[in-house]
């Protein structure tokens, strides 16, 4: 199963990349994915601890940590926006 991660603003700067393509062997919830990412890179601990960061799954805001991710999903990490 393949998932695309998109990073913006300070998260993109901190990670030094705008996206990741990750492969998962089995069905995973957003909560499990978070643990998985933290174990690979401690920067994700800081990201997930920041309550102002929002997560969008396939362009819809993701609020349920137990949401199951599917093959081809796009998960975006959005710090507070500042357009206009």
């Amino acid at each position, binding site marked *: 199963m393949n998932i695309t991660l998109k990073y*913006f*603003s300070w998260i993109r700067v901190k990670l030094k990349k705008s996206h990741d393509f990750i492969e998962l062997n089995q069905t995973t919830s957003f909560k499990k994915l978070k643990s998985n990412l933290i174990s690979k890179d401690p920067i994700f601990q800081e990201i997930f601890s920041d309550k102002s960061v929002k997560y969008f799954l396939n362009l819809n805001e993701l609020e349920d940590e137990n949401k199951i991710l599917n093959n081809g999903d796009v998960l975006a990490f*959005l710090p507070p*926006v*500042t*357009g*206009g």
Partner: protein
Amino acid sequence: MIKIINESFDLENEFKRLNSSENGAYSFFLGTVRSEIRSLNKNIKGIFLECYEELAYTQLDKIRNIALKKWKLSECLIIHRIGKLNLGEKIVLIITSSSHRTDSIEACEFVIDSLKIDVAFWKFHLLDNGEKEIVPQKKKDKEKILKWREIIN
């Protein structure tokens, strides 16, 4: 009409798109890059605007549809630029048109206030020392959108 673009735009041309004898009022909001001093010895020479375009289009479409439903508008145009912009350059344009001024004025204010809080754009200051500084979200912008949510809901 909604556009997210790199290049600049012409105000008169955009107005002509909406101009109709059925309208009696047009409200414009034009946001530009200003030379704000963030801290001692740090001046801004421009900004960089980052965007998650796919999401921003859907968010702007939602805001525009709310405005068209809430107020008696004939049109609502939103243009937002992305990329590197110099001081004084145009960033964002909103034009609302209606028969009477109250609808266009209120809707225009609603759209820009919503855009600042609910659309996937991120602003960076380009400092004259070569650094990029992330622009934080303003508390007053968050407070403004809470007021609109009470009115809309």
